[in-house]
């Protein structure tokens, strides 16, 4: 009660009254603290890392044993150490994207959003901070996972046609691309959480955009398919970390730009809804 009991001289800006102030950096540090103070963050990030490493190593071992027995699965026929190591990206993106949705939509489902927006009534700094903090964390986890998996995976497949080392052209670029892709998936998840304000809705749209739409596009006439397919979020993203590219895929740089475009679109929609609608 000490501070409260202290008499107020000439409020609100009297002497002795501390000069608090909301700044972008402070909102960032608040979101950083919020992220790490929930158990679900640790569990989901751990799952994402586990998916990335475990599935990459399993794929590498399957390839190795297939080569050894002379019975290579046709899906693995033209694999490289990079593609085998990044086999788990599809699963890791689910964990990291879902956590991104939770970071934002979880505030709406619990009621925390009222406290958050009362503290930062300008609202947008919260969205930017959440996207930046979680995007960075997902980027670090993704990059770390990609390099760890390649470190072990390339050892498993050494001596096979898929063998590659870090010094091989494009390998480091692919691994960094995978990390960046996972980071941006985290940002998209956060944006979808803000856009839909619902954990279930955000996860559904995320899974739909990354995993279902590519399947649906195969129903289109083939002449359209070639024009649309490379620009879908999942395919553009895959171009970022694929080692080899052909006429049906975008170059890594084009893939990155298209995927950044999707990310910006999701963030813009989230920002619009955040500012325009009541909390």
């Amino acid at each position, binding site marked *: 009660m000490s501070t409260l009991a202290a008499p107020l001289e000439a409020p609100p800006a009297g002497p002795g009254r501390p000069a608090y*102030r909301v700044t972008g950096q402070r909102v960032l540090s608040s979101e950083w603290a919020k992220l790490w*103070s929930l158990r679900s963050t640790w569990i989901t990030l751990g799952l994402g890392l586990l998916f990335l490493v475990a599935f990459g190593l399993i794929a590498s071992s399957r390839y190795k044993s297939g080569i050894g027995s002379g019975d290579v699965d046709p899906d693995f026929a033209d694999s490289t150490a990079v593609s085998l190591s990044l086999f788990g990206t599809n699963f890791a993106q689910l964990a990291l994207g879902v956590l991104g949705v939770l970071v934002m939509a979880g505030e709406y489902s619990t009621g925390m959003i009222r406290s958050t927006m009362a503290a930062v*009534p300008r609202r947008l700094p919260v969205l930017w901070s959440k996207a930046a903090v979680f995007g960075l964390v997902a980027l670090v986890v993704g990059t770390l996972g990609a390099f760890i998996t390649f470190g072990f995976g390339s050892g498993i497949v050494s001596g096979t046609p898929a063998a590659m080392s870090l010094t091989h052209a494009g390998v480091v670029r692919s691994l960094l691309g995978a990390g960046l892709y996972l980071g941006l998936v985290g940002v998209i998840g956060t944006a979808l959480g803000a856009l839909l304000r619902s954990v279930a809705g955000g996860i559904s749209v995320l899974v739909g955009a990354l995993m279902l739409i590519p399947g649906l596009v195969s129903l289109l006439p083939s002449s359209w398919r070639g024009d649309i397919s490379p620009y879908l979020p999942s395919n553009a993203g895959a171009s970022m970390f694929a080692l080899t590219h052909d006429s049906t895929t975008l170059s890594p740089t084009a893939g990155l730009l298209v995927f950044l475009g999707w990310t910006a679109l999701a963030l813009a929609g989230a920002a619009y809804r955040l500012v325009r609608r009541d909390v």
Partner: protein
Amino acid sequence: MIDAQRLTKRYGEKTAVDRLDFAVRPGTVTGFLGPNGAGKSTTMRMIVGLDAPTSGSVRVNGHHYARHTAPLQEVGALLEAKSIHPGRSAHNHLKALALTHGIPRRRVDEVIDLAGLGSVAKKRAGAFSLGMGQRLGIAAALLGDPQTVMLDEPVNGLDPEGVLWIRNLLKGLADEGRTVFVSSHLMSEMALVADHLIIVGRGRLLADTTVGDLVREAGGDTVRVATQDPARLREVLAGPGVDITGRAGSEELQITGLSAREIGLKAAEHGIALFELSARTVSLEEAFMNLTRDAVEYHGSTTGIDTLAADGRAA
């Protein structure tokens, strides 16, 4: 200081808050009263910028809430309970809010102690009882050492000790010169803490008054007397400021302006026999009910039956 001007909020066809004009001043506890659904919570949400008014405006300490550089230092608000993430501890919840403003860690510990949460500060807030959740909400409201404190139904879920704590806290804050704005649908609770009252019903301002004025306007203190000789008693009691009513032929009189004691003494002095002498103080609850009767959104079933019966008679 909170200043609402023609504040209006519509959700489609429904008008939740209808052209509210009021001011909440520093140094006193202002009660914000109204039946359920009267628009109290919506008004409070607009004050801290969670909802945007459809028209009109509300300012806090001279500015819109979102314009302040340190909003938590201007208004500390407890809104509907549980504006927290259940997976986060009370300490981490308050720390995260404090970080946005650069509020020092020591202040977080201070409000935890102030709210009596010391022993549970490290536990997940989701495991808190309703009362503990309220205390955490109040700790968060006081975090920025705010000039204006606004609490929506703060006594909900608190045990008697907690209710007493809130009462003293609110009075203490007002005595320090802060603006204290507290909503409730319980007149009896408000009467104990509030000096000023803002009463709303169906989104409209019904009264902007003080506790004393509300009672006086609602009928004040009436004494009911039954006597053998009403005509003579009227003569005896008549005087300035005394108001006597009663039906012709009835032994009963309603008297305002004199206490039951004075009436009894006068009657004895003049040898007038009294059969009944009872002070009938209009309670704040009744005054409030009279004021809001037409504005109650959700009538209980008994009221509904009464209304039906009345309609039946009318038809």
